[in-house]
């Protein structure tokens, strides 16, 4: 523990960063001490990632001063930041997939001599890995690692490069709960070594479990820094969102419009698909999903989640078995045909799979709507705007700047765009993969509430997630997906982590597949 008054590891003063008219950061004072975990909280679009990127030299601030160990420094590029001992782990990892773990780590070291001192680097890797619980096989190809292990390599390469401060931007967004636990153990070890850690996250529970201090950002400013021992969840939420943060707006949908209960929306009969290279084959999947029902699919990602979604959406065809949508054989329907029938899709990576970064938000909102907004050869933008405004309002999301290019949106805001678009048209079947990933606490609550509302109105919802709390909260039934097959089925009485959790990692006391 560092005493008050000691020189902070890093201090930023008067930082201003504008993007056009938008002030993304206006920070009077922000400091990180050695030997602490500083959590950075804030609603989507608050400016957390922007601040992180400024500290890592990825963006140049319009104004402000940065001090490292009390000395004013110029951080014009990530290289400068690394030279100053500042490391950052981005959300989308930057490993070179075709190279081994060792090569990835070695290549990142500054002043690497022409003849790589393999033994020495390997020895240091082993030492660091042992001490900080970052063990990964150095000879594995980086692309073949699970996300959690990739993250370990990211951290390892920063440590070997001499990082004294580590910024992690939503590191737990893509991790399974067990993997998150491992990460926190690593962070605790690093803190004990005297490193300063900035942890950006939306999960309050994690913050309260492992942070020493908590900084809250709102509209580009740091509106409060709280000591963990004094922090209470309600206070943090109030700092993040203002008054009455977690109140649902009264009726989300017209409750009169109930219909469609108990109709079989989706049925898979003994479906198998081999999948392509790098995909998980699906094995003999049989399941039913009715309108007015939310079925959760639990599983550690990489067990066939994306393939399962793709199969339903018509992106992949079954090699064997039948897929029925509302009683019709839909095994060979195109994506467009499936969507036209009222199927909405929230994929697991909005930037790569659901948006076109170079197009504006408005243009992205019209994609995938078939002929719905066509007006002659053009698009009826007015009608689109009206529908989308309604959808954003219903989700309690602020209206985005429709002219902004999607590439400039914050991670959570991009996810909001996809959700608003997909849930705008009263879908009859919703296939949602990790729909609340990257969303702030309030948006998460709103999305779950809307999914339940849509279910009550007769939508069928397939919720694929690795977050058991989320699954238990909204599911009517739960299936466990393991190695491309359905390993078990649970009803709400058995929604307990100690029952479901082991099956997600391959335990087999309940061997009869549903």
């Amino acid at each position, binding site marked *: 523990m560092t005493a008050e008054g000691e020189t902070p590891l890093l201090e930023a003063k008067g930082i201003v960063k504008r993007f056009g008219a938008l002030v993304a950061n206006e920070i009077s004072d922000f400091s990180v001490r050695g030997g602490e975990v500083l959590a950075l909280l804030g609603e989507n679009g608050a400016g957390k990632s922007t601040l992180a990127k400024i500290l890592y030299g990825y963006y140049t601030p319009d104004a402000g001063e940065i001090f490292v160990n009390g000395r004013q420094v110029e951080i014009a590029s990530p290289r400068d930041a690394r030279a100053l001992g500042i490391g950052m782990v981005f959300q989308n990892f930057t490993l070179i997939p075709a190279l081994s773990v060792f090569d990835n780590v070695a290549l990142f070291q500054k002043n690497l001599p022409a003849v790589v001192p393999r033994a020495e680097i390997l020895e240091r890797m082993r030492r660091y890995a042992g001490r900080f619980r970052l063990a990964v096989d150095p000879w594995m190809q980086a692309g073949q690692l699970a996300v959690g292990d990739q993250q370990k390599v990211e951290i390892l390469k920063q440590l070997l490069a001499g990082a004294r401060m580590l910024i992690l931007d939503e590191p737990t967004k893509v991790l399974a709960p067990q993997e998150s636990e491992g990460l926190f153990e690593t962070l605790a070890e690093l803190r004990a070594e005297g490193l300063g850690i900035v942890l950006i996250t939306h999960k309050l529970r994690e913050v309260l479990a492992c942070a020493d201090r908590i900084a809250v950002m709102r509209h580009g400013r740091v509106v409060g820094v709280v000591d963990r021992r004094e922090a209470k969840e309600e206070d943090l939420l109030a700092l993040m969102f203002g008054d009455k943060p977690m109140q649902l707006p009264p009726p989300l949908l017209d409750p009169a419009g109930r219909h469609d209960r108990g109709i079989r929306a989706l049925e898979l009969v003994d479906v198998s698909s081999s999948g392509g290279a790098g995909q998980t084959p699906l094995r003999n999947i049989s399941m039913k999903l009715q309108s007015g029902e939310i079925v959760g699919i639990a599983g550690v990602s990489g067990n066939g989640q994306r393939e399962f979604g793709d199969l339903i*959406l018509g*992106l992949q065809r079954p090699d064997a078995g039948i897929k029925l949508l509302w009683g019709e054989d839909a095994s060979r329907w*195109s*994506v*467009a045909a*499936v*969507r*036209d029938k009222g199927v909405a*899709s929230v*994929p697991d990576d909005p930037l*790569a*799979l*659901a*948006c*076109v*970064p*170079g*197009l*504006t938000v408005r*243009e992205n909102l*019209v*994609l*995938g709507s*078939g002929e719905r907004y*066509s007006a002659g*050869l*053009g*698009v009826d933008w007015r009608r689109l705007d009206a529908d989308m405004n309604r959808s954003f309002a219903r989700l309690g999301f602020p209206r985005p700047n429709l*002219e902004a*290019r999607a590439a400039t949106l914050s991670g959570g805001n991009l996810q909001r765009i996809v959700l608003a678009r997909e849930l705008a048209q009263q879908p009859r079947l919703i296939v949602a993969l990790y729909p609340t990933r990257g969303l702030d606490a309030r948006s998460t609550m709103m999305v779950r509430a809307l999914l339940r509302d849509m279910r009550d109105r007769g939508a069928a919802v397939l919720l694929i997630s690795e977050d058991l709390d989320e699954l238990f909260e909204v599911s009517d039934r739960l299936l466990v997906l393991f190695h491309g097959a359905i390993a078990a089925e649970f009803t709400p009485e058995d929604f307990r982590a100690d029952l479901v959790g082991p099956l997600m990692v391959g335990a087999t006391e309940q061997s009869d597949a549903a």
Partner: protein
Amino acid sequence: MRLDGATLWACASARAKGFAFVTAAALGVFATLLVAAGKDPLEAYIDTLTYVFGNAYGFSELLVRMIPLMLTAVAAALPARIGLINVGAEGQLYMGAWLATAGALALPDLPAFVLLPLLTLLGFVGGGLWALVAGVLRALRLVNETISTLLLNYIAPLIVSYFIFGPWRSPETASYPQSPAFVEAARLPTFFHSRVHFGLVYALASLVLYWLVMTRTRIGLDMRAIGGNPEAARRLGIPIIRYILTVMFIAGGVAGLAGMAEVTAIQGRLVSELSPGYGFIGFLVSWLAGSSAAGIVTMSFLFALISSVGDILQITQGVPYAVVNILMAVILFIVLGRHSVGSVAR
């Protein structure tokens, strides 16, 4: 790939930079050669520019060169919007000319008002089908379109040669391989007692349509989505294969129009040396223009000017025309190099 709209200003300034860069490169290369040959470059430039801009003929010849450049640039720009690289406008131009010739030779008795639209259509279809070959190969994921369009460029002129050496060889000029002269009804009209021909209307219409489709229509939006993120486009149900085939056909068709106009307006018959590499220069024009319609016009102008200058310097100063080709190649390398470096850095 750049976009219209929000980034218009950035585009315009990038284009201005490109324009300045090409001009400087051209002036520099020509000047070096002139100095090396012991001539005064300044004087040569002044003479040349007075010749090009000082009289109606010089300027009309510039326009004549711009026509195929604009058409072949559209042929490259359209596929570029969905992320395809069409370097085959040259071959597509030849096949447009070939099929139009077939029509002109087969139907000499039709009146002009029937024959010319028909030949236009044939020119379009000829170029379109040629490009469609590459489109199909790409859609089936058999051959990358950059390779196939490039290779098809070598085949098209051979087909043309086969016909003018063989079945279509003109009996009157037996010593020189070319088709018989077209009937008067098959000649595309020209304007102002110059060689500026109706192809100019095709070129401008193609550009306007291209611009309208890309910025105003649903189709243009879908295309930009495919170009911007094909995986997302596929997942949103945009029919990518249909777009690949249609876009390649239309792009090839537009290049085919250039070929059709060359044979029906300029040559009046099918000849083997139909194009001095218009298709390649058109590709360069499209890249430097960032696929923008206005940029294509200005860049076509610039390249037409460079090749006119090259021509005149050849005649007046004895600078070989090959210099122009070398210059184009150098510019192409620099442009492509800069583009790929940019995309890696980001």
